[in-house]
């Protein structure tokens, strides 16, 4: 087959997927951006576009604080999962020698990923309440004298649940990069009398940096967009930007909901760009 005909076939094969992504993702996103500039609540072609909704957002400290809260929660989760996720990945790949045990640990870690996050969120509720499992355990161990109510309807509870959902996202890519390290590299360093700690910081960490980075991007994106955990565990007391989009949409404030959606997406884009800037992926792997 000549190259031109071959290229035509490829384009035809790629077309359905491309159209699907354009129609269900790219065009709707452009619509959100357009709606965010509407100056009237309902749509008419004559209504002028403007920054009215954006100024409204930044003039209200409540909304700006929500934005800050959302970003802060993402940073907190990144800080926790980068350490926890790495420790788990390092143990499973580098410290477990028996293949059967390694496989078992992998499965135990990955199986919850194949179940519904919503169900897993609901499963946290019997743990967090005043009569919940955590409180019963604390009372039994006599850590506290009476039940504490800091878990349910609180940021602590949301964080507890989110750590259990998202740590795996930080672990997975690190597992992948750890497995790709040729054993001869740390061996060479050790034969040159490098201490284990030095081998870890000078060889292992730099070589797994792309994995750490991809994991952190995944955690960041997921926590930024998470609204279900906040609404199920935080009750009405805690909200992130996603929850506000729902609230405004339900009350018919389409343009203002769109503003928040646009700002949320901009934060996510900015965050990913910043993470990629911290570590230049293309230069990694070059000694």
């Amino acid at each position, binding site marked *: 087959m000549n190259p031109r005909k071959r290229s035509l076939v490829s*384009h035809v*094969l*790629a077309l359905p*997927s491309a159209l699907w992504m354009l129609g269900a993702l790219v065009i709707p996103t452009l619509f*959100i951006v357009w709606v965010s500039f509407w100056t009237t609540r309902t749509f008419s072609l004559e209504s002028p576009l403007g920054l009215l909704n954006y100024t409204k957002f930044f003039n209200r400290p409540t909304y700006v604080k929500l934005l800050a809260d959302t970003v802060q929660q993402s940073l907190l989760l990144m800080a926790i999962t980068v350490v926890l996720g790495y420790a788990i990945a390092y143990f499973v790949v580098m410290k477990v020698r028996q293949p059967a045990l390694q496989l078992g640990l992998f499965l135990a870690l990955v199986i919850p990923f*194949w179940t519904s996050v919503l169900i897993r969120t609901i499963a946290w509720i019997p743990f967090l309440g005043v009569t919940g499992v955590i409180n019963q355990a604390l009372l039994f161990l006599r850590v506290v004298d009476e039940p504490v109510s800091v878990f349910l309807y609180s940021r602590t509870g949301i964080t507890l649940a989110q750590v259990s959902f998202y740590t795996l996202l930080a672990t997975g890519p690190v597992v992948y990069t750890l497995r790709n390290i040729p054993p001869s590299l740390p061996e060479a360093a050790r034969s040159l009398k490098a201490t*284990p700690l030095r081998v870890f910081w000078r060889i292992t960490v730099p070589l797994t940096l792309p994995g750490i980075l991809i994991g952190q991007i995944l955690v960041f994106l997921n926590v930024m967009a998470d609204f*279900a955990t906040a609404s199920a565990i935080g009750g009405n007391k805690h909200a992130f930007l996603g929850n506000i989009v729902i609230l405004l949409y339900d009350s018919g404030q389409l343009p203002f909901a769109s503003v928040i959606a646009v700002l949320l997406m901009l934060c996510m884009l900015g965050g990913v760009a910043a993470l990629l800037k911290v570590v230049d992926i293309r230069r990694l792997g070059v000694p």
Partner: protein
Amino acid sequence: MIRWQTRQKVVKGALGGVTLLFLAYQWFPMLTMAVLSFTGPNGGTTFPMQDVSLHWYRELLRVQMVDDFKPPMLRSLLLALACSVTTAALSLAAAQAMRARFRGNGAFFYLILLGVMAPGLLVGFGVAVVARILGLPLAWYTTTFAVHIVWTLPFGFLTMLAAFNRFDRRLEEAALTLRANRWTTFWRITFPLVLPGVIGAGLFGFTLSYDEFARSFFSTGSEMTLPLVIFAQFDRQLQPTLYAIGTATTVISLTTVAVFAILFRLVRLRTRAAVSAETQ
């Protein structure tokens, strides 16, 4: 030297402890939910359990006007099946296209990967906004289906790219030298060899869609899928029925994964045996 070895052991023990604690942390809520779903008719949503019974599962099966989980469950299963087939077909075509490095393949690659990065709630929100402006109705089999594919396609696509990566091009070339045309070569040689990848893509299509909540939130009309009904019920009142439906749907998810995994292994063993028999 002895001190070095003890230090290694301490590190290993500490890391192992962290891993085991995390596993307990991850599994304990799910197992607790499963145990509590078997509480008696007077049981509450936390310990202590009042009796052991199948009361809340029977409650699920009983026909009710409100809180009937059966139609949403059927919708979710049908939607997941549709997503499974569509994801497998689209990713097979898209990955096959990528092999020829056509013009614009870089942009195409990122366009599809965008589906993983885009925040689920906002993808659904965008489709809802479009539908509202254009006056189109929302439904689980149109708009929800469309946004679920946006989520499942990148996973299927990456799976297929990996399948083609491991693929031995010489087998195709051999068929072509033996004067098979492109079409025959694809269906007789290429497709059977990448079939495990197709099954993997189908698995992603099914489970990711079946459990999807965020993308369905705005994009589904009045006929809700299972996660939406569960969330609505949870918003009204937490009852042991939710533990029962949660346990049941988790069992369905994991059974599907197991079935696909077995299928995957069988097909891979068969193609391997066939290829080695042919080449000998």
